[in-house]
């Protein structure tokens, strides 16, 4: 019988799993049930949508449908009957499965503040496409916005709204932004960068309550201050959506517990993405969710029955226009003292919004924070990712490609060039050959070129030839004196 695989959740994880299953050979029936009414979209692009640079169709993800894959949106699942291996849907259907994959994702946390239950119209969490639509609706005609929560997502939302021309203030309870990824110095540089982009920050102050009406919203702070705006965006973290799993009796801590093959305690049920808890960790990121989808597809299709999920270290990347931040590993906190000597490299240029901190132990990067214009970010990310050895010259980790590379331009003064130095690469002509040619009578760039073929390939060394001709014209009479043949009298170089 054809195996029936049912995926609950049509977000980035569920959509990717459907595609992974579709791409593998074999006969199976895949059903994807999405509670949201629309097709899968790229959550990572929502802040760009918020900024108004793109429209909704641009955030759609590639979708697999047809030929063994049935995608059904607007179908919430209300219960799992593990004995009968059936799902109950909000539309009253029963759907049987041979294997079930939970990809239910997570929900935005609404903090337990007075005034947020029920959620007023002008207060919106930032999590889903629908949230995004509501924020955009509320932002229409708005002049100011508050963002509660200075983590990654909150800052992206703030940047997006600022790009729409709103006056934005981020309120964050801790003393510096993104405190889990950044050290205080980096947080301060980031706040400076945001200020330059029109985003104010209120730090180290918890919120105490919200008062909202049809005209606006007021956020009361614990220190007694009150901030008014047209819109309040909540970005206070997410919580895995585990209700279905818990109700079905699966083991749930913060997320649904899974093993290395992403299986729950029921061997016919797996979980991937935000709702899954693997090795004590919730990921909340897309790349691990997609890696998990690959593992499940490999295991379920028999493509690689031994496939195991091996988490990659997390690299946090905040990328919004005008902000370039990468943070990874243990750079935010103090180094663990037990583990042998630690090297720290730091560079700070707060006036230009640049900050770098790298931590090295045993020739390996254990953490890094790079903010602003850091040309080495690609290299650092890859070194960290692979646990590869860092360069002998540590400066190159901060300064990047300029270090150790030899400029292509010829030496400033031809006098300082060694005779063996190649002037014309295309025709392998050395400075010595050009000097010899001068001595036998060539006096202009064209004559040097004709005699040696220098400059006849790509033509890129013509300036260098002119420089050498000029230098010889000055130096040669002195160098060779009166015994030079009369035919070789210097003539001005062209």
């Amino acid at each position, binding site marked *: 019988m054809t195996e029936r695989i049912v995926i609950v959740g049509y977000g980035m994880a569920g959509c990717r799993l459907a595609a992974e299953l579709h791409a593998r050979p074999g006969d199976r029936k895949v059903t994807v049930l999405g509670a949201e009414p629309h097709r899968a979209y*790229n959550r*990572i*692009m929502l802040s*760009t949508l918020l900024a108004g*640079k*793109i429209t909704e*169709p*641009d*955030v*759609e*993800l*590639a*979708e697999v449908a047809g030929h063994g894959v049935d995608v059904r949106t607007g179908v919430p699942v209300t219960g799992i009957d593990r004995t009968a291996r059936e799902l109950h849907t909000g539309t009253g259907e029963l759907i049987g499965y041979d294997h079930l994959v939970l990809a239910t994702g997570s929900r935005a946390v609404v903090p337990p503040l007075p005034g947020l239950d029920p959620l007023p119209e002008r207060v919106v969490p930032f999590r889903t496409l629908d949230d995004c639509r509501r924020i955009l609706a509320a932002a229409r005609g708005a002049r100011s916005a508050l963002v509660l929560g200075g983590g990654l997502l909150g800052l992206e939302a703030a940047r997006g709204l600022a790009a729409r021309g709103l006056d934005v203030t981020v309120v964050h309870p801790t003393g510096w932004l993104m405190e889990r990824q950044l050290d205080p110095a980096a947080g301060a540089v980031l706040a400076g960068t945001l200020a330059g982009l029109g985003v104010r920050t209120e730090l180290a102050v918890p919120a105490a309550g919200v008062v909202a009406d049809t005209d606006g919203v007021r956020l009361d702070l614990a220190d007694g201050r009150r901030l008014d705006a047209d819109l309040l965006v909540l970005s206070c973290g997410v919580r895995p959506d585990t209700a279905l799993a818990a109700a079905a009796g699966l083991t749930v801590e913060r997320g649904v517990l899974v093993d290395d093959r992403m299986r729950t305690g029921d061997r016919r049920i797996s979980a991937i993405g935000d709702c899954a808890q693997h090795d004590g960790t919730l990921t909340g990121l*897309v*790349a691990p969710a997609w890696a998990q989808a690959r593992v499940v597809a490999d295991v379920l299709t028999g493509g690689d029955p031994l496939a195991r999920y091996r988490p990659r270290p997390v*690299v946090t*990347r905040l*990328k919004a226009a005008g902000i*370039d931040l*990468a943070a990874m590993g243990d750079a935010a906190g103090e180094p663990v003292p037990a583990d042998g000597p630690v090297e720290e490299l730091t560079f700070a240029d707060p006036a230009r919004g640049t900050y770098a901190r790298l931590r090295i132990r045993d020739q390996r990067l254990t953490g890094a924070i790079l903010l602003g*214009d*850091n*040309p*080495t*970010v*690609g*290299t650092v*990310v*890859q070194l960290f*990712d692979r646990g*590869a*050895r860092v*360069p*002998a*010259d540590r400066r190159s980790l901060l300064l990047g*490609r300029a*270090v*150790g*590379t*030899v400029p*292509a331009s010829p030496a400033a003064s031809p006098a300082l060039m060694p005779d063996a130095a190649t002037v014309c*690469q*295309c*025709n*392998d002509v050395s400075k010595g050959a050009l000097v010899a040619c001068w001595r036998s009578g060539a006096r202009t760039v064209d004559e040097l070129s004709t005699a040696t*073929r220098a400059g*006849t*390939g*790509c*033509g*890129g060394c013509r300036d260098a030839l002119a420089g050498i001709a000029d230098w010889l014209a000055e130096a040669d009479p002195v160098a060779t004196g009166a015994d030079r043949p009369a035919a070789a009298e210097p003539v001005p170089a062209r």
Partner: protein
Amino acid sequence: MTDGVRTATQPGAGSPEVATHCPYCALQCAMTLRHSAAGIEVLPRQFPTNRGGLCQKGWTAAELLDHPDRLTTPLLRDRPGGELRPASWDEALDRIAAGIRTVQAGHGRDAVAVFGGGGLTNEKAYALGKFARVALRTRHIDYNGRWCMSSAAAAGLRSFGVDRGLPFPLADLGRADTLLLVGANPAETMPPLMRHLADQRRRGGRLIVVDPRLTATARQADLHLQPLPGTDLAVANALLHIALTEGWVDREYVAARTTGFDDVRRTVAGYWPAEVERLSGVPVADLEATARALGTAGSAVILTARGAEQHAKGVDTVSAFVNLALALGLPGRPGSGYGCLTGQGNGQGGREHGQKADQLPGYRRIDDPAARTHVAGVWGVDPDELPGPGVPAYQLLESLGTADGPKALLVFGSNPVVSAPRAAHVESRLRDLDLLVVADFLLSETAALADVVLPVAQWAEEDGTMTNLEGRVLRRRALREPPPGVRTDLAVLAALAHRLQAGAPSYRLSHSRGPLLTPAAGFPTDPREVFEELRRASAGGPADYAGVTWDRIDGAEGVFWPCPDVDGPDSPRLFADSFPTPDGRARFHPVTHRPAAEQVCADYPLHFTTGRVLAQYQSGSQTRRVAALRRAAPDAFVELHPDLADRLGVADGEQVRVVSRRGELCAAARLSPGIRPDTVFAPFHWPGAARANSVTNDAVDPVSGMPEFKICAVRVEKR
């Protein structure tokens, strides 16, 4: 005529000089050859491509004409393992014909295979394809261009409906506001092309180079992206992702002139810059700067070359850049577009006229009944008797001498012992053949293994046409006759066809409905006559040469195909109004990144990649024999980062061994901070212990058959 230089249309017409083009790369620099007191002299000639420039290879090209190593008599090996000895032409040709007959009688027609080259003239490439299909009646013909252009060709065909390396004249590069070069190093591979880039920079244009090494070309760039080898596809998808999010996609163009964008848009949504940064090592900021430079330019050109194409995902990688170009509305817009830089001298023409396993002249598909009927009509044979498609080059070589593979191979204009991937394996396949025939003018490494070696003419001794990297058909002109004892490839094919048809009744085509083939009619030795037939055979095909004549080329600076009518225009620029697809629109193809065929691991922890040096060409069998070039680039080397060298305890100049699962190469270490510390590089022009292709991977692209020359896993050891 150009530049007032007299032209010789007959070999050995006694002209003191002729206007011709360089024998080496696809730039086909214009040059004048002249008899002088000192021998044969090369002079650069003004032409729109090289603009009077020549690199050292071109300047010294004539030195091989009277080189002491020049072959002037056929060579025969009397028994396996014996020595090659001089022989007469009759003996050599009889031996080949007898060998072919024996093999085909015992194992069928497909037991004889032909391997051609991208350096052969159009006339020779055409004649070779016809020889295989009509005289040998084997399906097995392919050529070394499979390892050069096939990925770009396949991607071009599926998106544009046509494969012409540059769909615009080279000079257009000089007018591009932004020029993106992906895996291309023209400063070393075709130096005079850099004159156009200098123009471009002088006008304030930006040059961006994508290459894992800081090459001579990358040094001149405004921005150098240095990705991990094998991640170009992801980089392209990220660039399109950024172009989408920043609103730089030309929606109007996409709507009016293309199909399939939505699938590509949804695919690249999954390639956000931070993820691709992690994969490729290219900083997000550089990805953004590149996308901006392309997306906001008035005119922009994207070019790929072997660095992007020689992968087991080469076709998809090129498609990713074609998608980017289409999304930005570049192809067909003046001064903008996508193109690939062709490698070999006639890499373009060589793939259009029947050397490819699946093609007939005019870039027709051999499995297309209408194409078969047309070409069979020109050839005077029954379409049903034309063989079907063969297999791509590597698959062909790998099968040689095996139970089901060909037992005899005829090689023209190629040296696979040095140039094939996993070369030691290919060498062992060649050794297992019953008959290996090599036509060459020097004893190449492949010729040295042959049972019969045929000495053939060099470029200055033959007339013909070449199609350069722009799709411009050029005239190659003979300065002199071949030396005594040397024949042209066309004469070799004619003589072999004559022997095969006359000597073996079972191979006469008398049972076919077409006319009986005679060597004179079927395989003329006059290249002009061959070209006239090529015109008819290509008429109506995608690469239509019907309107191209030698006289027309002589009267202009070449003729751009397609050119269907003698009185009609040629086609310097394609796609201005439509694409040659059924609906006239270009087609997007969604493509996704996949890892290289071979991953690094504890035993083979480094990436290995190959490429060229300025002073050598291809397998080096020619350029290694030119004294000046040998001085400039005497030996192979292994380029590695000083940090890696330090870790390995290797000093600059010290001999190292690069070891892969397939073999090893030994050469001196050359330390360079311009290469990624996780990657080592070696040029592939040398044979023997320094042969880079002993190491390379023979995994091939599923669509094009292109081997994965540009990435495999190795370790480096001190010797």
